[in-house]
């Protein structure tokens, strides 16, 4: 490319290791893009994506240095510039949006002032014109009522809004290149889709070149012209987005694609074995050889050169011609939690409502409950032995509250929870007997937080074993080793601390800890959302296997409809702590749907360049549920009138235990949704 805007030439970046050896974390990266191009930079954690992105800003984390090569921005070497010149370029011509935009905003400073500062630093606008420009920027990122927003503080905004403010700040200097580090990771599905569509439009409007760094091919599919895949510090594949997503020439990219759960397939995606080598590890031959199904002796001995293919890709693989013809992965596991005898009820929630409001002093004296709309209300659910019930909704929809209530961490305000038809689960944890505690286990979202950083794996696994079974030291060890084997970890993990394991390994230890209790009901709270997609596939597969082994029922909470589709037999959709729809997943994922389910389904990102998200409802965040009527009244794209605001919608049955809570007659609802669907196809 002759008119390259940013050109990374044979760049190697590394650090000096403990023994004085130089360890490379980026190896001979050649990468460039021109004006207005959008590139997706994809790979698992620890593959060097973020290091490369930061290097393109002329920044290296402390301790890192350039070993070889350079980066040219408009033909100027970034690493040869002095700090003043770099500061002028950064934020002005080259802008970065960090991974967690919420944390990148100053909490004590108003939104208006923060953006104005960027405007002041990177433009020559007169002070009195700056406010105008800030408002313009805020409307450019489609934030409603920008003038009012100027006076707000970051914590008053939702995650999606904070992300938009960060984008507005980055746009202040009219940058030529915008680097986005995991721009939508951690956001809700609908917000994610909205933010990506916004970025896509901005790229088209402003002609800004954008680089999206992500571990998820689905997230970059829609917004990138070109996709570059990194593995172990090397660029292993680069090519047109469509080609990479449809038919990648590198087995690693193929593996990544296959590990993404698809909305249309009710199977656990196939997973790649192994994990990337730790950053800085010296590699002989092809770095991916250990995890590759077609690796031969050549791969282990000789590092593959970069070659161009007939399909416009540049690939680092000896056998790239063969990738296309690789046999499809072994048939993925069919979910065991799907086909279950639903009459054998294990857990039943009847009219459960949960409130976080605490009664005031006067109410306490009079023994009154505060008269506020409860956070979670009207929940009627049952879970059969050995089945998986998916619980879906955006953040704040009360999914986790329901799990915590079942686990006894927060007693319900109203309603009954029964276990095995006769045991009440209304009692809090400290009033449940040990055997009941043992039978209900909870797995958390983030293993970094749910595993005590001071405990070795042996101690982590010993805790439930000691508590529930009173095992002695020898038995503990044998049992722990067996548990580790069940989650496919070796006994050498016993001595490790959580800090010495990868995210996926930690989550597997957390799962092993839950299964140490031999539970009958496992409550999974977003257990894969903190993990890379490739690791997610492994964990999902493992959960399926353990379910078959222990005949445990899962209540699987997630905001990701595709993941729930992969694992759950039945799905319940929650909005603002109220049920919208519940039924077998084949029914929930087909029309007619509750309007909210429709919105969620439309927003799912798929690794398919032709899948266009349908953005219907605004991604505004509601802080509290409406007191009356349908919970979704304020955002519903199909609203029919005041009845939605005043009357609780009826449960409409479509058969097979599938119910939709909506005022619109089902026939009518389906007709409306079909019209939208066909409009989307055109």
């Amino acid at each position, binding site marked *: 490319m002759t008119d390259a805007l940013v050109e990374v030439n044979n760049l190697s970046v590394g650090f000096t290791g403990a023994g004085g050896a130089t360890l490379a*974390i980026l190896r001979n990266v050649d990468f460039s893009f021109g004006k207005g191009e959008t590139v997706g930079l994809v790979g698992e954690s*620890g593959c060097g994506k973020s290091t490369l992105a930061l290097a393109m800003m002329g920044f290296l984390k402390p301790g890192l240095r350039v070993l070889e090569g350079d980066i040219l921005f408009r033909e100027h070497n970034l690493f040869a510039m002095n700090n003043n010149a770099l500061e002028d370029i950064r934020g002005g011509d080259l802008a970065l949006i960090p991974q967690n935009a919420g944390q990148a905003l100053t909490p004590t400073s108003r939104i208006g002032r923060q953006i104005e500062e960027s405007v002041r630093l990177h433009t020559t606008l007169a002070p009195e014109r700056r406010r105008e420009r800030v408002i313009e920027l805020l409307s450019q990122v489609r934030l409603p009522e920008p003038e009012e927003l100027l006076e707000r503080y970051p914590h008053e905004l939702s995650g999606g809004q904070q992300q938009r403010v960060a984008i507005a700040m980055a746009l202040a200097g009219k940058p030529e290149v915008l680097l986005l580090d995991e721009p939508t990771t951690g956001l809700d599905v609908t917000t994610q889709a909205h933010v990506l569509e916004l970025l896509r439009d901005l790229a088209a409007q402003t002609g800004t070149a954008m680089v999206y760094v992500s571990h998820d091919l689905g997230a970059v599919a829609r917004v990138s012209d070109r996709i570059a895949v990194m593995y172990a510090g090397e660029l292993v594949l680069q090519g047109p987005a469509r080609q990479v997503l449809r038919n990648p020439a590198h087995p690693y990219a193929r593996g990544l694609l296959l590990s993404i759960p698809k909305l249309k397939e009710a199977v656990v995606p196939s997973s790649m074995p192994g994990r990337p080598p*730790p*950053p*800085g590890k010296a590699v002989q031959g092809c770095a991916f050889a250990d995890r590759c199904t077609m690796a031969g002796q050549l791969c282990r001995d000789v590092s593959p050169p970069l070659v161009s293919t007939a399909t416009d890709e540049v690939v680092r693989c000896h056998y790239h011609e063969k990738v296309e013809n690789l046999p499809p992965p072994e048939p993925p596991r069919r979910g065991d939690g799907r086909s279950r005898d639903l009459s054998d009820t294990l857990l039943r929630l009847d009219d459960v409502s949960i409130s976080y409001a605490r009664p005031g002093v006067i109410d306490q004296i009079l023994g009154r409950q505060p008269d506020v709309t409860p956070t979670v209300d009207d929940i009627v659910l049952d879970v059969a032995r050995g089945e998986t019930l998916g619980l879906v909704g955006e953040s704040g929809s009360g999914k986790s509250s329901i799990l915590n209530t079942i*686990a*006894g*961490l927060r007693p319900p305000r109203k309603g009954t929870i029964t276990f095995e038809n006769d045991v009440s689960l209304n009692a809090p*944890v*400290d009033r*449940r007997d*040990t055997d009941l*505690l*043992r039978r209900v*286990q*909870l797995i*958390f*979202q*983030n293993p970094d*937080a*749910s*595993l*005590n*950083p*001071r*405990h*070795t794996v*042996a*101690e982590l696994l*010993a*805790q*439930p074993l*000691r*508590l529930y079974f009173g095992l*002695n*030291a020898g038995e*503990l*060890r044998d049992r722990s080793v067996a548990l580790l084997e069940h989650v496919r970890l070796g006994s050498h993990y*016993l*001595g490790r*601390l959580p*800090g*010495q*394991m*990868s995210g996926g390994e930690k989550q597997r230890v957390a799962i092993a800890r839950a299964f140490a*209790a031999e539970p009958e009901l496992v409550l999974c709270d977003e257990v894969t959302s903190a993990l890379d997609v490739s690791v997610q596939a492994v964990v999902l597969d493992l959960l399926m296997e353990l379910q078959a082994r222990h005949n445990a029922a899962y209540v699987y909470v997630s905001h990701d409809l595709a993941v729930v589709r992969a694992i759950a037999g039945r799905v319940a959709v929650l909005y603002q702590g109220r049920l919208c729809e519940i039924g077998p997943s084949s029914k929930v994922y087909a029309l007619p749907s509750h309007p909210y389910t429709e919105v969620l389904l439309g927003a799912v990102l798929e690794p398919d360049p032709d899948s266009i998200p349908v953005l219907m409802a605004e991604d505004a965040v509601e802080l509290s549920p409406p007191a009356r009527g349908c919970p979704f009244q304020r955002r519903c794209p199909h609203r029919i009138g005041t009845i939605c605001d005043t009357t609780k919608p009826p449960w409409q049955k479509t058969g097979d235990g599938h119910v939709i809570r909506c005022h619109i007659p089902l026939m009518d609802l389906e007709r409306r949704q079909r019209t939208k669907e066909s409009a989307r196809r055109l």
Partner: protein
Amino acid sequence: MAVANPANEAPGNRALRVGAVIREMARRPSGLVGLAIVGGHVLLAVISPWIVPYDYTTQDSRLVLASPSPEHWLGGDHLGRDVLTRTMLGGRQALVISGLGTLIAVLWGGSLGLVLGLIGGKVDDVVMRVVDAFMAIPWILFLLLIIAVLGTADAVLIPTLAFFYGISVIRISRAATHDVTARDFITAARARGERMWTIVWREILPNVRDVMLVDGAMRWSWMILAFSSLSFLGFGITPPTADWGLMIANGRSYMAVAPWAVLAPIIALSSMIIGVNLSADALAKTLGIDRAQKAPV
């Protein structure tokens, strides 16, 4: 129960960790200097009764405010006692009393803070207001009051100092506990049905221990200073026992004629405090590294 599990923290394992921490501290210049100073002072305090050149109470009229000489390296004080002897012995009381006081302060303040941080609610509110009230009182006045009433025996000094320093430990330990209790592993332990005691001992303590250690080390240096201040004011050690604070108080009137009599204890005292501070600093850094032992890069 704690010893029953071989894979957890066997005694050897723990000793290994203490050794590793000290080695790591000594790798830093500040840690090396600090540890050497503290080590020297402690060693001196232990062996000084056997190696001092003279008796610390013997008064020699020829030695009154005498200049340093080959026989008396640091000269004599206003009562004709050997300054070197008294300086060598003068740290013993300070070390023992402040050491014990710190230990008790960290133990009681730490445990109370931990419990408050864990249970929270109204009890926490009430106790913390009392703590605030105590912290608003100028502690030296209060100390003097107690000592005036109860006397200056070690059995009074140690608990009194421990009480006052423990109050500020409560805050630190409560904050550190708060930081931990909000994390999911505590929720996990609660959901599992672990008893309160197990949660405190097994889940929280290992995570606040480091903070408490560093805080304790800092407090130790403050307590040495506080004890010496009391002695200086005449409320600490009963003469004729040698003590740095007392020596400074006595010597300062003759500073113009016999500066060595006041300089020697001042240098001893400040070197001790600097040494403890340096060590505490290195300890914090070392444990910080220990804590940040995350996945590479």
